[in-house]
């Protein structure tokens, strides 16, 4: 079920009413209801894959309890390894099996040795990368004795399958979300209202910004050989906003829906395109994944401690794995490696934690230095996005080659009376709006919030894309 679908428009109010009016005073009933609706939400796409979530839930629930009851360190480790192998095994099979087979065959063929391919027709279960990481964080935290295992199976199952963030995050930590299933939920008007604002803003980001950009991006990336520098430049900028609007939009809706139900999820995006360097960008982009990798991969590897060589190794591992997490294609791996290259100079110069404050905190506009820093960071990000969006690495290089060598910056017709620069005004207004409200979670809160909400609905109705229905990009991850 998609957040921007008619089905969800019926689903959410129904869940809200039953949850708050029928089961208001029964915590257990509320949780069972949430679990049932979460399975319905997921099963709407393909009910067969509910078995995967259920299996993952059961395994990690049992392993969590077993680890807590086990005092022998070796056995605890063995249990953790079992959980890792099981979860990553499922992820590896469904997401990467064909990729490895194809890469293996291609490698031999590069040496002139023909091989028979036997890749399987595997459907990638929606959200598998998200809920796998969520359950893994639980088991690892129990192993590290950071949290106590939960005895309530329903609580744990609901934590794994909680529908607002099940298919595309934010990837929640058990230490934050799990306890919320255990305490009675009291309706909080301010929390619910902020949730409503996040939902509206998320819909705007998805339907107006991301989907408008998608129309142009699809034309540009499928026909880049015949387009000029300006079109390719706008194409990569449009994709930057498509993926931002798409994913931040989904996250905002997810967080908003959770708030309507009385839950607080972690923030996933914090105006990433106003970052002054790549390190800051990664603290503001897909925060739940970045911090996951930091806590469960980067720090255990040694983080920024150790020799220079080890530091470089750790940075590359975390970025390449992060790229690979996004999809089974070398383009994602390259995208990750490129970000590691961007990040490395900052780390080596110990400048990676330089920009921790809000940009231009006490002024309306950034100063020249900040403005140039933002521009450089955004440009680097856009170059990296070309690898993320292209079908192959060679396509990415060809795209960038034409972009930098064609040097024709003229107006270019794309299709259906659309020209290359047309979205610039819309994106400019979007950037200005985000800039003005960068100190708060979303622009709708504050003075005249109702009026701003109505205006947002007006924009969604008039500027939203409805006919060329675009699925959320991150569903495929």
């Amino acid at each position, binding site marked *: 079920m998609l957040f921007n679908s008619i089905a969800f428009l019926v689903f959410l109010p129904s869940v809200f009413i039953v949850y708050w009016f029928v089961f208001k005073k029964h915590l257990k009933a509320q949780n069972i209801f949430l679990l049932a609706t979460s399975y319905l939400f997921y099963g709407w796409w393909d009910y067969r894959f509910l078995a995967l979530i259920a299996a993952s839930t059961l395994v990690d629930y049992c392993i969590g309890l077993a680890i807590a009851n086990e005092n022998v360190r070796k056995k605890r480790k063995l249990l953790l390894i079992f959980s890792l192998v099981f979860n990553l095994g499922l992820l590896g099979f469904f997401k990467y099996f064909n990729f490895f087979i194809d890469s293996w065959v291609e490698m031999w063929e590069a040496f002139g040795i023909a091989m028979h391919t036997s890749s399987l027709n595997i459907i990638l279960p929606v959200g598998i990368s998200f809920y796998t990481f969520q359950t893994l964080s639980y088991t690892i935290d129990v192993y590290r004795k950071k949290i106590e295992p939960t005895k309530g199976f329903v609580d744990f199952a609901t934590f794994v399958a909680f529908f607002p963030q099940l298919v595309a995050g934010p990837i929640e930590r058990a230490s934050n979300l799990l306890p919320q299933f255990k305490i009675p939920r009291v309706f909080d008007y301010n929390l619910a209202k902020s949730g409503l604002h996040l939902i509206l803003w998320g819909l705007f980001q998805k339907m107006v910004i991301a989907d408008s950009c998608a129309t142009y991006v699809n034309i540009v990336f499928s026909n880049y050989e015949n387009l000029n520098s300006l079109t390719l430049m706008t194409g990569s900028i449009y994709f930057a906003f498509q993926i931002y609007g798409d994913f931040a939009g989904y996250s905002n809706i997810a967080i908003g829906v959770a708030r309507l139900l009385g839950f607080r999820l972690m923030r996933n995006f914090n105006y990433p395109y106003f970052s002054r360097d790549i390190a800051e960008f990664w603290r503001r982009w897909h925060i739940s994944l970045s911090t996951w990798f930091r806590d469960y991969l980067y720090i255990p590897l040694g983080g920024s401690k150790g020799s220079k060589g080890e530091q470089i190794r750790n940075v590359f591992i975390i970025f390449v794995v992060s790229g690979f997490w996004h999809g089974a294609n070398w383009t994602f791996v390259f995208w990750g490696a490129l970000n590691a290259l961007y990040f490395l100079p900052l780390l080596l110069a110990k400048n990676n934690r330089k920009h921790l404050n809000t940009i231009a905190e006490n002024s309306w506009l950034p100063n020249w230095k900040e403005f140039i820093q933002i521009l450089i960071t955004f440009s680097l990000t856009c170059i990296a996005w070309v690898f993320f969006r292209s079908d192959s690495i060679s396509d990415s290089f060809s795209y960038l080659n034409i972009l930098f060598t064609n040097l024709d910056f003229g107006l270019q017709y794309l299709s259906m*009376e659309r020209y290359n620069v047309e979205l610039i005004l819309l994106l400019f207004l979007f950037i200005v709006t985000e800039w003005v409200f960068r100190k708060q979670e979303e622009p709708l809160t504050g003075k005249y919030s109702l009026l701003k909400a109505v205006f947002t609905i007006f924009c969604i109705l008039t500027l939203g894309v409805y006919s060329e229905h675009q699925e959320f990009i991150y569903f495929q991850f």
Partner: protein
Amino acid sequence: MKKLIKNILFLVLATIFLMYALDFVYTYIYQNGIPRNKVAYVLSKQNKKIDYVFIGSSRVDNTIVPKIITEITGKSSINLGMQGAKPDDYYLMLQLLHKQNIVSDTVFIQIDYTFNMEGTSDIINSSLMPYINDSLISSFLKERNPNFYKLKYIPFYRYLTFDYKLGFREAFSTAIGKHPNINLESGYFPKYGSQGGKLASVLPEFINKENNTLNKINTFAKANDILIVYFMAPYCANTTNLDFSDKLKVKIPSMLNFTRVFIEEDDNFFNCSHLNDKGAKEFSKIMAKSILNN
């Protein structure tokens, strides 16, 4: 909770109000602004005489140059071909012309593999949305579009459904009087050069027994004293089942068969089933001479 429900209710009511208001504004703009597609163009004209009218799909839209037809025959002409149009759309266009009292000596209808088709196209459906309350268009859509009731009765739904053709950018362009990239007085939409790649097309192996919509067109034409001439526009040499045109000729003996007129001249084609500007100009001369000879 009451406060939140009040807020939600307010937003729901505001949304409904906005949908009504936007529906009214968009409809007003489309009905009163400059026409930017062929349906709007026909509906903006009344009591007019156009000697030769050409109806069909993109194989008319990109093929017939009315200026050349008029130069050679000395008669007025218009190209009402539309991308993706199907027989039902031809029939509707014929009815709209009649309704607007736009009379003509001859209506030429391009027919090809569409003989095996019934139904209407999405693009034509989108053009009809601002006029959904018109009785003729309403009954046309009611019979063919499964979403008819939603389109007609949910305010603004019709513009959301077809936003790629009737959304904000189109409404804005219409409101500011921006002319479309096609001259609707002529209706010819040229394609230049070649699409690239090897020219190839496939026609159906078998032909249907009959086409119900064409039967309706013939009945309608007879009842209203309209002369209909069917023709089949050129295909390139590398067309599989090119003899489909011969089978069609058997079904419609009066059909003018131009399928093979450029069989040795691939440079006239944008792609195998569509002429480029050069080809369209050449073909229009052939068509005009054919009109004079018949």
